[in-house]
């Protein structure tokens, strides 16, 4: 019996398959490299961030990535944050008009219902390095290092990640871990928690260690659709208190502030989250959707929904609207103030970021090319609003008539540029 030769795929199909496999095997940066002959990429951005009547940030960032023919890449990112303005001290509104006089004789009158702020000014520099290397055909390792420094905080960190492509590259498994060795050295020394601030624990650096791990799986579901699930955990140990934040002491009957204590947080924090992400390609446009559930042993629970829609326009331009909604519950030890004369708890904070807050973000990115310049430009403008329940049921006296959690309006603008050379 003469057997028929197995049918062979057409030449065109074989070539397309080979091209597709090559692109997917070598990763996107290398694919771009193959198309353009570029061996390096520069990404730069400038962030201008402003909170209404509070903090302002100017943050230029530059990233250079070296792309090698075997798929390796090496990148370095340098960022500088210039931060000025003021943030809530944690103190509650006094309930009466307060007049303060500076040593130079300048008199300031603070309205009865206004949240007290603390002024600050700082510059933070951060350097991040990353090395990505494919090996054994289906594995890719990514290792990174981080260093940053500001006036009263220093961070050194390292992380590693391994991805494996499985099942005809339809599924990708990822595992990773990171460790940060940080130090907090408050200006003027570290105050004893829940004291009047006059007693110091010391003037040196307070250690803070963060170990984190993550695992994830992503899957190509259809020709247009990818999904991923990531789970991560982080364990923080050491000095986790905000040294400049305070908690108000309130008169039990009138609710007027009669003093304040420094805040105190636990020395450990275990965080966890699960993130589900989806990307759907609509032939031209792309829809990004993600949901994250977060919880920790401080009692904070949060839900985050993030939606982006990339709309391709003419002449290689695009418009990408962005909508994000975030909602968190308060930490167990969050309080809008302590009653004078009552027992002082072991831990307490009035930092709004550990309160029952909501955040809504609305913005859009416009990407474009200029005729006489290589590379891609982008401009992103976003509006962010934060608010919470400013009339808690346990408010006392005049505090009941004041919005203790006034909404905060934030605007940001990012101008970006990316080019291969």
């Amino acid at each position, binding site marked *: 019996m003469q057997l028929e030769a197995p049918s062979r795929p057409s030449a065109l199909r074989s070539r397309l398959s080979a091209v597709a496999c090559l692109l997917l095997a070598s990763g996107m940066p290398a694919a771009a490299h193959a198309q353009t002959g570029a061996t390096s990429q520069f990404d730069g951005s400038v962030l201008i961030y402003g909170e209404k009547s509070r903090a302002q940030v100017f943050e230029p960032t530059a990233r250079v990535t070296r792309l090698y023919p075997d798929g390796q890449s090496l990148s370095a990112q340098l960022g500088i944050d210039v931060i000025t303005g003021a943030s809530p001290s944690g103190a509650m509104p006094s309930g009466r008009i307060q007049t303060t006089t500076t040593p130079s004789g300048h008199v300031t009158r603070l309205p009865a219902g206004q949240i007290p702020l603390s002024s600050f000014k700082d510059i933070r520099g951060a350097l*991040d390095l990353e090395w990505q290397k494919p090996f054994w055909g289906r594995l890719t390792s990514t290792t990174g290092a981080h260093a940053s420094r500001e006036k009263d905080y220093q961070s050194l960190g390292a992380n590693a990640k391994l991805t494996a492509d499985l099942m005809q590259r339809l599924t990708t498994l990822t595992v990773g871990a990171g460790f940060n060795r940080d130090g907090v050295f408050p200006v003027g020394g570290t105050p004893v928690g829940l004291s009047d601030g006059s007693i110091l624990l010391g003037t040196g650096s307070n250690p803070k260690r963060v170990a984190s791990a993550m695992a994830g799986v992503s899957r190509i579901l259809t020709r247009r659709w990818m999904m991923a699930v990531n789970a991560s955990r982080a364990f923080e140990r050491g000095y986790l208190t905000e040294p400049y934040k305070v908690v108000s002491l309130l008169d039990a009957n009138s609710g007027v502030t009669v003093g304040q204590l420094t805040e105190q947080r636990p020395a450990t924090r275990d965080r966890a989250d699960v993130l589900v992400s989806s990307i759907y390609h609509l032939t031209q446009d792309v829809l990004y959707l993600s949901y994250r559930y977060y919880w920790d042993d401080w009692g904070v*629970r949060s839900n985050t929904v993030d939606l982006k829609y990339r709309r391709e326009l003419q002449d290689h331009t695009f418009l990408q609207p962005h909508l994000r909604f975030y909602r968190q519950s308060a930490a167990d030890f969050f309080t809008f103030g302590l009653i004078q004369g009552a027992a002082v708890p072991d831990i307490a904070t009035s930092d709004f970021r550990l309160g029952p807050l909501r955040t809504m973000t609305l913005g859009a990115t416009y990407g474009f090319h200029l005729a006489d310049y290589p590379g891609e430009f982008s401009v992103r403008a976003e509006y962010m609003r934060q608010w919470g329940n400013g009339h808690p049921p346990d408010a006392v006296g005049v505090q009941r008539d004041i919005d203790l959690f006034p909404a905060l309006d934030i605007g940001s603008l990012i101008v970006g540029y990316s080019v291969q050379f």
Partner: protein
Amino acid sequence: MTPRARRLVHAVLFIVLPALASGCAATAVHPWDRDLLAEKTMRFIPSPMEYAVDQHIYFSKEGSTGGQDVAGGGCGCN
């Protein structure tokens, strides 16, 4: 962790993860069908630098963190 949160996490782990691992697509996606998937826009983090800036902003204004990566440095902002 509250019972409600535990149920939610279990639902994600026991329904979504196996679906992703085993492949709930009706048909396999062959390499020659992955032209759209190979585009730069089909990455979970299309712009790592913009992602880092965003995470820094959210970290400084909210009580949660985490998500796509273990990378990222500490900051005195929160």
